[in-house]
């Protein structure tokens, strides 16, 4: 046999992602909708409910989950054991971000390079023992999303985070269309900085509406402190959303 390589990392990535019971891919059609904050808070809510939880930051160009968690890139260390074990943030919350390798230096990745980084990360990080994995992604639909959406279709459940802005509506439509065309029937939906006005839209498009979070001006002050975030109003909304998620996904 002589073969030009396809990509052995994809096979290993699929195997690694077989371990968690649920893998959620958090996506948005536009930036600034609160996707990273929601991914992070959902992972905290899941872990506080007693589930071993993973948070994976796949936004290689603008990773920021560590800022929400208040972690200095220098303290994020991984254990090497037949691959790489994610960093334990607390009790049962496990975390991986690229910033521990880049030290938060700016990196500009073209599509192919982002794909390469994606498969490398997914192939080496072991999520053994993790029940729920939340993957934060860059805004929009890029090569990383398409790689995951096409190649890991059977493993991931997409969660769309969107705001009620009229400008965003068409962009959400496009995102839903892409997900449907890629073969995703079950699409979860969270309305951020809203009041529930997107519920009819979600129902019309057969999305599983998990709830809304209103615009909360105080939130900014608590970014960087898990303790403060837990006491913010936002966390009670996230807990309700998490509860809905658990009841919808068995």
């Amino acid at each position: 046999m002589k073969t030009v390589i396809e990509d052995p990392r994809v096979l290993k990535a699929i195997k690694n992602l077989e371990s968690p019971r649920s893998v959620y891919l958090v996506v948005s059609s536009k930036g600034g909708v609160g996707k990273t904050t929601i991914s992070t808070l959902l992972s905290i809510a899941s872990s506080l409910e007693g589930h071993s939880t993973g948070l994976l930051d796949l936004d290689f160009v603008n990773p920021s989950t560590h800022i929400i968690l208040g972690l200095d890139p220098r303290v994020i260390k991984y254990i090497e054991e037949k691959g790489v074990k994610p960093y334990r943030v607390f009790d049962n919350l496990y975390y991986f971000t690229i910033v521990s390798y880049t030290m938060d230096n700016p990196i500009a990745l073209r599509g192919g390079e982002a794909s390469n980084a994606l498969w490398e990360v997914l192939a080496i990080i072991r999520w053994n023992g993790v029940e729920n994995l939340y993957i934060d992604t860059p805004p929009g639909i890029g090569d990383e999303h398409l790689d995951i959406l096409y190649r890991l279709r059977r493993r991931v459940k997409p969660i769309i985070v969107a705001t009620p802005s009229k400008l965003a509506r068409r962009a959400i439509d496009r995102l839903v269309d892409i997900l449907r065309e890629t073969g995703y029937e079950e699409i979860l939906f969270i309305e951020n900085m809203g009041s529930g006005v997107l519920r009819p839209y979600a129902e019309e498009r057969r999305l599983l509406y998990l709830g809304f979070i209103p615009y909360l001006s105080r939130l900014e002050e608590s970014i960087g402190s898990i303790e403060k975030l837990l006491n913010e109003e936002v966390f009670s909304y996230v807990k309700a959303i998490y509860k809905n998620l658990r009841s919808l996904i068995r």
Partner: protein
Amino acid sequence: MVHEWALAEAIILYIENQGVKRGRKLVVKTGALQSIDEEVLEFALRELIKERGLEISEIEIIEEEPLLKCRTCGYEWRVDPSSMSQDVRESIHFLPESIYAYYRCPRCGSIDFEIVRGRGISEIRVEDRD
């Protein structure tokens, strides 16, 4: 540096996925940017070959020298991972794309460059019996 085990698993999964169960020699081409510990990789491959019931007796690991090319001015240059600081080398070992956080074109200073070769595993081949 023992994430070689994860790479070995990816290689074996790939071979199995190709439907190959036996052969004379497994040839793996790795990129020097990843600073793979060849002994560890070979050990992991042998263990996995045994565990998965494959019949492959020889393993050859070939390291490819890294070559970078600037997309702005076209300049090509080589990097030697052994001359990097331990932290940078280790970051690139795990994730070769980390190089974009530490390097730029030595001629024009652009950060828009590509890894032409020597990034990671670029070839897996099982040679048949003679």
